[in-house]
């Protein structure tokens, strides 16, 4: 220790640590801090609740988020398939490929013509004749 430091320490009184009632001072500080600490604990509890809620939210939407990049193309593809299927059903119910703007083969046109002829014949039959046709048709060509 140099002379100046020693002289300063001689000139200035030491902190009277032995005169301080340390337990009482600590009680005073703790008591004064208690409301702020209680408020902090409440906030921390509420923040913990919000964090748990956020984790719970993640629990259900996270798989969706993971699957959505793959799910969207799959859904789009399924939609296209459904649209094609629906179009096929409609065309099978009376809309010809020609109506849809497509090409028709000779065989298809003949089959359609035969079927139309059969429908016109069948429309002229009464109920008993229709039953005979249904029961006794043995696959012969018209």
């Amino acid at each position, binding site marked *: 220790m140099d*002379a*100046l430091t020693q002289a300063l320490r001689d000139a*200035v*009184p030491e902190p009277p640590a032995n005169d301080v009632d340390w337990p009482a001072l*600590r009680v005073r*500080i703790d008591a004064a801090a208690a409301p702020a600490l209680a408020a902090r604990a*409440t906030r921390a509890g509420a923040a913990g609740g919000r964090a748990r809620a956020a984790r719970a939210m993640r629990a259900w939407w996270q798989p969706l988020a993971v699957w959505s990049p793959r799910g969207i193309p799959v859904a789009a593809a399924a939609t296209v398939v459904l649209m094609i299927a629906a179009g096929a059903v409609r065309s099978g119910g009376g809309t010809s490929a020609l109506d849809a703007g497509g090409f028709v083969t000779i065989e298809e046109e003949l089959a359609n013509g035969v079927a139309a002829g059969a429908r016109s014949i069948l429309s002229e039959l009464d109920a008993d004749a229709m039953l005979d046709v249904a029961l006794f048709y043995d696959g012969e060509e018209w």
Partner: protein
Amino acid sequence: MPPPRQQADAESGIDTAQDTLLVERVLRGDAEAYGDLVRRHMRRAFAIAYRILEHREDAEDVVQDAFLRALERIDSLDTRRPFHPWLYRIVVNQALNYRRSRSRRAMDPMPATVAAAGPTPEEDAEAAALRRQLRSALDALPERQRTMVQLADLEGFNSTEIAGILDIAPGTVRWHLHAARRTLRKVLEAARGVT
């Protein structure tokens, strides 16, 4: 970029890692952890406050206010940095504010060991005169320099620690300390030359 957290401050001997754990618990409102922090640092905080105020009750009040202020601001503490320089900075600022705002009260009576330093009445008088002159010179220093001398020469902090407490560069601390000591040394040499 703050320096990496140290497990224990080599110079102060304070376990900064333990402080950090306590601070993290205090952030969640843990009263027991806060009490532990108070217990670990209240004596040094009192000594710092007393150096600036030289009044025991005022220093106790400042320590109490400083710990409460620290609790209010603890969210702003960078937990990668040690806790105690941050706390001592609050103590110093509180004590300086207290000192500025109060009307100067009577000092505590000088401790008996200091008052009775000197074997003869003549030497006693000379020593008392030297102490008075040095005290006057210390009080006449700019506030920042006086605080640095109190922290360095009386409390034993080095310039790096003082820089951490006052939140200034170590080079600035060394410069101010050099200037303050040069002034005080002149007073000391003059007083010894006269006496």
